């Protein structure tokens, strides 16, 4: 009996491994192509003549003397001072995530523990709020922000990003809080804690898988945001995505597309560290949380 179930297990495992491998190739493929191409010139990487130019670097050789060049990176980081945008992004994203998680966690917890109908309607309202296209919201913000002289500041964008992403944050955290057994904080309250103390001492230690996942999404939403950051930040305060967009040129004027490619590749590297850190936290959250009875 054990042999049959073992072989059944392993065919499933083989299929699973194959499937995951195919996905990893598809997921990483374009990015690896981009990394390779970031060391070429525009004539190679964005070539209509022959796509193999990007592999051999024909024009790169012709224009810079070698098959690989750092021109894109130099242009982005030194000429266009992309590092400023990286600093701006770090500040804005850090505060957005921290504030978003703080107010979202207590809000999501309240919604999960409420037990009254109005909690459901607040969640529905949040869903409707999320359905509003960001571009319309941002168009509406601009005139008041100019009138009150707060346009272009980092703090304004932070507040807007926090508010706009609250519906998503609330829903995600609420669905994770629903999984934490009610008896944990209820028994703490029976023991004499206030709701907030129960939350702080009982729930907080076990909420990390959900909070970190939500934090990751808050981070990615703020990091990748274009609609809000492109319209509400002045040039010195710009984050990375609008800065990259500005390297691309327009219909009438050629831009520096390779700067954009290099910038995008170099901004993915720190995210690697973030993800590696994140995935370890998730797993340790498992041992701290759900196994406890």
């Amino acid at each position, binding site marked *: 009996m054990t042999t049959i179930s073992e072989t059944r297990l392993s065919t499933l495992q083989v299929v699973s491994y194959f499937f995951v491998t195919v996905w990893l190739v598809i997921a990483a493929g374009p990015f690896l192509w981009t990394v390779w191409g970031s060391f070429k*010139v*525009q*004539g190679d990487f*964005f*070539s*209509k*003549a*022959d796509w193999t130019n990007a592999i051999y670097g024909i*024009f790169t050789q*012709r*224009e810079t003397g070698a098959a690989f060049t750092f021109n894109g990176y130099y242009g982005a980081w030194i000429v266009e001072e992309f590092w400023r945008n990286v600093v701006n992004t770090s500040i804005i994203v850090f505060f957005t995530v921290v504030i978003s998680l703080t107010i979202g966690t207590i809000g999501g917890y309240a919604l999960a523990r409420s037990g009254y109908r109005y909690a459901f309607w607040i969640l529905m309202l949040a869903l409707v709020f999320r359905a509003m296209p960001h571009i319309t919201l941002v168009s509406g913000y*601009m*005139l008041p922000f*100019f*009138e009150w002289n707060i*346009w272009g500041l980092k703090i304004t964008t932070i507040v807007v990003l926090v508010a706009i992403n609250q519906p998503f944050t609330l829903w995600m955290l609420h669905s994770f809080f629903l999984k934490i057994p009610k008896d944990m904080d209820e028994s703490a309250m029976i023991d004499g804690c206030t709701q907030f103390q129960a939350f702080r001492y009982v729930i907080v230690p076990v909420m990390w898988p959900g909070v970190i996942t939500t934090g990751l999404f808050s981070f990615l939403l703020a990091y990748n945001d274009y609609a809000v950051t*492109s*319209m509400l930040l*002045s*040039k010195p305060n710009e984050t990375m995505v*609008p800065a990259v*967009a*500005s390297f*691309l*040129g*327009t*219909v*009438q*004027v*050629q831009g520096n*597309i390779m700067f954009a490619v290099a910038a995008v590749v170099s901004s993915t590297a720190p995210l690697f560290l973030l993800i590696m850190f994140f995935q370890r936290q998730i797993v340790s959250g498992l041992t701290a949380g759900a196994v406890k009875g």
Partner: protein
Amino acid sequence: MFFRKILLSTALTALMSSAAFASDCGPSGKSVRILGSDFPAIQAVAGTAESNCSGSAGEFTVNLRDNTRDMMNQALTPNPAEYTSVIVANSTLTQLMNDGLVRPLNDLVEKYGSHLKPNQLITIDGKVMAVAFMANSQHLFSRTDILKQAGVNGVPSSVEEMVAAAEKIRAAGIMEHPIAMNMKVGWNVGEVFNLFFFANGGELFKKGSAEPNVNSAAGIAALNSVKSLLEYTHPDHLSQASNETQALWEGGKVAMAIMWGSRGAAVLDDEGSTAEVSSNTLLSAAPTANNGSIPAATLWWDGITIAKNIPDADAEASFAALVGGLTSDMMKEHNDKAIWLVDGFKPGPAAAGVSETAAAGAKPYPMIPYINLMHNALGSELVDFYKGNESAEDALADVEAAYVTAAKGAGYLN
């Protein structure tokens, strides 16, 4: 003794004239805040203004960003406006004027603009609303070597000649799709219609009103002109804009293209293309159509405007700083960055196409309040015709219906 006096007086004169130049920054200690798009030419103009006058100004900021048009109206509405000056083009000036956000510059031109040429002044009913410093347009790019190889004499000067040349190139087996145009659905495809509509003698609106006039003989002729060229254009043309057409050109895949003159320098340089391509590229006037005389092009200018909702002293300082930078010295330094309208510009080969097109009598992109609504309607409703799903008349009727809906919503029609 005598020599020293001469030296002294020359030195003094030199000092005085530079001092006189420096005082052309207008009132000192004021705030100058410039908004513009992030092009090399605008960087040059704003940068020159900054290096001349940031010392005498109390505050001098230059903000060049890539979505100026999307936020400039809101930025200039409050009082005081967020910026004192915006660098605009034909279509964006009307956008600001529709909301009454820029001020007339006649008195400032008198005071600080004596070195400007009269054709740099953009006037509406006699009021100077902007000072232009560079021009642009679409025009024809040709590969003289391929044309010669296919047995074509010279360079095509009309749509019919382009079609004949393309057929010869195809028959000779050199290229299947020798023509390239910016036909991306949206702004670009609307603009292509404008080019050939004007070449066919069309007027977008009925005289003196906001009523559309595109569903006419000229409109159908325009669509047919474009269709005849599309026969020889890359099949993906409805998704191709300047980056793609320029890449097609530099990759040596096309022999004739209608592209922007402002991309001329990028096309002619030795980056991205082989010497065979760039040395055989000729920039010439845009083609005419149907035995007309107007080239299929729209002329564009970029210029300086001054906001209305700012103190007069700031306005004066901003104007003086920017206009003071439009000198032949500035142009000598940045000659190839644009097709300058400033005195003393020496057009290089990259500017030849725009100069020839302007000289041939091309029409400027109209400065009409509701032009953008029409352009938008053209950009979205002509697709069905180009895909072969609709007749020319039906497509133009759709354009007019879409335009009328938008114009009614905006208050231009009842």
